[in-house]
């Protein structure tokens, strides 16, 4: 296929999945979806290989969805699927690593023939069980486990499954609202793909998929071939709620002959008793993100561009966890996955990487009663610290990396619960100094306007071990989580007094190069 024809069809396909993802993001009830774009949307061929993906979403989701395609095709042989079928799962090990993320796949038909699938993963408002946070002791405490099932069978809703979901989540209206959005967006995408194929004169996407995947794989391997062969090491340590220190070690092997990169997490920490364990899919997602963002960020994400990057980790370690460990807050560890990889890549492409940053965003949820005695549960909200510095540019202050979460505006939070913010400002001097300085963290402070005790669930990290500097740059400041001025480190929900004042000081990013 020539480079003009393919460009036209390919960019149209990416635009189809991107538009659907944007629509999903706008209408989702889940705050993490709308503010963070914590969703993914993709087209798969009939072998379950990801052909094109929306240019939106967070790294954790977009690359986890890529892995789910294969599992769906294995569970549901394509010849058994009919128009109107809708497939679903939230199995952490088969999709995005915790129950909140529900993946929905719709077989796409063109002129009566199955040609592929449109899939999406979004973070739902609730999935029963423990709720937001890292406090559950095993995965079963964390909520409803939906195996690979049909949500609709030839257009008929699976009533049993609908009732099971309805009785096992706290916010059924919102969960069903978001599921309906996932189904309708995939349906619209299917229609738009059909129209595109008609316009361009294709019967199916087999040839296109082959071209897209093979060209992407070839280009990725070519980019790798330009790198210096060797095995490069990186290590990152950080503390998590409860005070444990987690260490992630990576050996990044670049094989220019094969055009392959292997990332090995041997030597990393073992499983945690808290719900911060990471399934392989999610580790793979953040690892490939780190490599691809330095190697060739403009290359579209698909089965081919991901194939030359292999990720291995010892069975059962914190980044390749096994049933039945809890996984609910897996982002706390998962968002650190790029750090040791970037440190290893520093030896190969120092101009592309950044120094360590604050890592995982700090997440907060509050429950209590307002001054009329009515109960409320806030949605989850989050704050970021400073990003690490780049070789020739400072790290942005109070900006999240590696994920792309927006903070919920103060006025929106204050309108939704009796919270009163007293401060949200940069934490001056918290970014590490260096030839390029790291970004500053921020100081956030609030009290509640209530007469009764309230529950606080804060997932903070790096309150002890600060982000390191790179190439002689100085470290950023470690974070501080204070209640009434005193430091706390708690993985579970805390009972708070009405007048308690909470202060979060998020970490600053590391500097790059000696000052």
């Amino acid at each position: 296929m020539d480079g003009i024809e393919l460009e036209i069809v390919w960019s149209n396909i990416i635009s189809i999945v991107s538009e659907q993802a944007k629509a999903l993001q706008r209408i989702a009830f889940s705050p993490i979806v709308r503010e963070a774009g914590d969703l993914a949307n993709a087209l798969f061929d009939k072998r379950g290989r990801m052909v094109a993906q929306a240019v939106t979403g967070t790294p954790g989701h977009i690359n986890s969805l890529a892995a789910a395609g294969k599992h769906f095709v294995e569970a549901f042989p394509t010849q058994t699927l009919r128009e109107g079928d809708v497939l679903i799962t939230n199995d952490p090990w088969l999709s995005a690593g915790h129950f909140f993320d529900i993946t929905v796949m719709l077989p796409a038909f063109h002129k009566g023939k199955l040609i592929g699938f449109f899939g999406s993963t979004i973070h739902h408002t609730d999935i029963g069980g423990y709720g937001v946070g890292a406090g559950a002791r095993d995965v079963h405490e964390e909520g409803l486990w939906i195996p690979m099932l049909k949500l609709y069978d030839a257009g008929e809703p699976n009533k049993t499954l609908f009732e099971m979901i309805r009785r096992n989540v706290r916010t059924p209206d919102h969960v069903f609202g978001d599921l309906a959005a996932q189904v309708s967006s995939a349906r619209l995408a299917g229609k738009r793909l059909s129209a595109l194929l008609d316009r361009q004169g294709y019967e199916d996407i087999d040839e296109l998929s082959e071209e897209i995947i093979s060209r992407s794989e070839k280009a990725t391997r070519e980019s790798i071939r330009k790198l210096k062969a060797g095995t490069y090491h990186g290590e990152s340590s950080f503390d998590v709620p409860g005070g444990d220190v987690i260490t992630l070690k990576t050996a990044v092997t670049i094989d220019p002959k094969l055009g392959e990169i292997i990332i090995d997490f041997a030597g990393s920490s073992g499983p945690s008793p808290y719900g911060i364990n990471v399934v392989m899919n999610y580790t793979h997602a953040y690892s490939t993100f780190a490599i691809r963002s330095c190697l060739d960020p403009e290359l579209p994400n698909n089965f081919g561009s991901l194939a030359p990057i292999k990720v291995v980790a010892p069975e059962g370690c914190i980044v390749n966890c096994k049933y039945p460990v809890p996984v609910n807050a897996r982002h706390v560890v998962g968002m650190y996955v790029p750090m040791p990889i970037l440190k290893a890549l520093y030896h190969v492409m120092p101009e592309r990487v950044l120094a360590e940053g604050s890592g995982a965003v700090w997440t907060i949820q509050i429950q209590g009663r307002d001054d009329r005695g009515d109960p409320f549960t806030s949605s989850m909200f989050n704050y970021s610290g400073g990003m690490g510095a780049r070789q020739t540019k400072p790290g942005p202050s109070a900006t999240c990396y590696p994920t792309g979460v927006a903070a919920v505006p103060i006025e929106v939070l204050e309108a939704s619960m009796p919270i009163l913010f007293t401060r949200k400002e940069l934490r001056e001097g918290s970014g590490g100094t260096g030839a390029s300085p790291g970004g500053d963290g921020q100081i956030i402070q609030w009290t509640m306007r209530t007469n009764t005790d309230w529950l606080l669930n804060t997932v903070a990290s790096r309150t002890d071990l600060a982000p390191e500097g790179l190439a002689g740059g100085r470290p950023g400041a470690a974070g501080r989580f204070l209640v009434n001025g005193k430091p706390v480190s708690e993985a579970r929900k805390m009972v708070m007094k009405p007048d308690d004042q909470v202060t979060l000081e998020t970490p600053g990013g590391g500097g790059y190069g000696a000052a």
Partner: protein
Amino acid sequence: MPSYALAVDIGGTFTDVVLRSDSGQTWVDKTLTTPEQLDVGFFRAVDSALAKAGIKPAAVTDVVVHATTVVTNAVIERKGPRTALLVTEGFRDILTIRDEHRYEMFDPQIEFPEPLVGSDMTFGVKERVLATGAVLTPLDTKAAEAVADELKAKGVVSVAISFLNAYLNPANERAMRDILKKRMPNLYVSISSDVAPQIREYPRTSTVVMNAYTAPITGPYLDALVAGLKKRGFGNEPLIMLSNGGVIGVEIAKIFPVRMVESGPAAGALAAAYFAEVLGLDRLLSFDMGGTTAKACIIEDRHPLVSGNFEVDRIYRFKSGSGLPILIPSVDMIEIGAGGGSIASVSNLGLLKVGPQSAGSTPGPVAYGRGGTNPTVTDADLVLGYLDADNFLGGDMKLDLKGAEKQMAELGKKLGTSTRDVAAGIYRVVGESMTAAARAHAVDRGIDYRGVPLFAFGGAGPVHACYVADLLESPMVIYPPLASVLSAFGTLVTPPRLDLSQGALARLSSVDWHGVDGIIDKLVEDARKGLASAGCKPDEITFKFGADMRYFGQQNEVTAWFDADPRKKHDAAAVREVFETEYEKLYSLRLPEVDIEIVSWRLVATGPLASRDSKIDLKGQPAKPSRTRSARFNGDDVQAPVYARRELAQGQSIDGPAIIEERETTIIILPGWRATVDKTGCIMATKD
């Protein structure tokens, strides 16, 4: 004695002027913009148009209307005077922290636009309003006076005030303003509760800061225009074009300069709306392709769509999120990096890519012969034979065909194809990417784009419009007359209009209708006062009422418009129905179980529009082609007839392939299309 109307549009490069007599005769001119002193260029253009018509300023008894890029320029070039921002104590870094988001996930080298006011010029003031609107802490007068003294000492010229929750209660912001004005009567002060009373502190603050930053530039500028017009003997004060697609009096424009951002493109959309009316078409897709970008805008029910927000100075490939957000009503346009200067290249995937990098005007396309070596869309158009190397800008600028062919051939080698096939590929790829953007823009708004006629203008628009129309399954392309000064013409057919809104979070099931009445009463009152500045009498004004709503639990609102004044019936069920109808149109969903939340109330107030048709001189005798030119269509080189637009007669039909040349652009009629000259002067291309 005939009466005349005058319109001036100052763009980045050119200042356009249109003078119209009440019999419909028009005189136009295009002069260079004078960026250092815009009013110099303004009057140069005005004098030239008046001289052409041979009239005195006193004969301009109808309106003088003005669209200008002054605000956008001040922001992009960061040339505002010393401006300070006052915020609630404890929230000093609001402009630096933004929403903490990275707009581009995969690029670790990401950067953000420099805020208009830095942290060093931002000051916290002790005060607090709660989310209920109640004042928790009144303004600390002593502290406020101390801040005022500091600002004075620092020589601050303009101040923005943005306190938390002030959109619900302006008391503390006003108290602060009064203290400042008392000490410094000449200080410019903008307060967020006036400029953008909407929830969400970052975009509201960004808006009021841009207002404060530009007020000291626009104020004297507009004063100079008023004085200059008066001195020359013009009878009326000018009306100013706003981004919402309305004109307003100088008095209001001076208070809210941020609403003038992008007033030129808005005027272009209004011109499209005018022709929709004249031609009796309910819907159009206006398509404006220039040197670096293409803009599309949907005209629905003969009016451009208007949205509640905008972004200025996008620093990263026109990407959403990479600019400064502002909460102003603006004509809802999509802009992508596809224009005549967009550079074509072959990616490492072996794909032909066009844009978003642009050769700009310097060095410009290879064909400009100014040292550009990257083949662009304009080069492709030239190689395809669509443009004439000897007749570009009426022959004022000679194009280098050989140079363009040489670079195109290089690209062809990489793709394994011929020079003209690469050029055809560029033409197709840029057409596809503009189509994809337009399609997405329409789908996002729940509009079926198929069958909607295109309204094509801009230097490159008419060259590419037929192709884009084919892709959009559109049966008609309209090429308006006066295309080279279309925005200026658009201001003449723009009514006075103000879009106002007020944030007020409430669940529909428990909304306090008495409070709603109060909010809408105030919006109506403000709109009446504002439109009075444009000479509208109270009984001439029509109102449209709307609200931003969402299902409770969501965070993104949908704007829906009511058929009637909601103050009359207090009918929650009707409000729900309006919202759900709009929501279903956008997302193909209804969620009957979920309550609805109102986020803000909206009002559009519109004054009367005088009829200002233009009479176009059309020839009586059908023109013959002046010559033919080899051009490539669908893979074949054919000798296409070339016509001069000014020679065409009313009713004349031309079958594609054909080329119709104007001074500033070229219309390409593709095979299968037939162009007909309408009595309005529009060329209408249709497809069977």
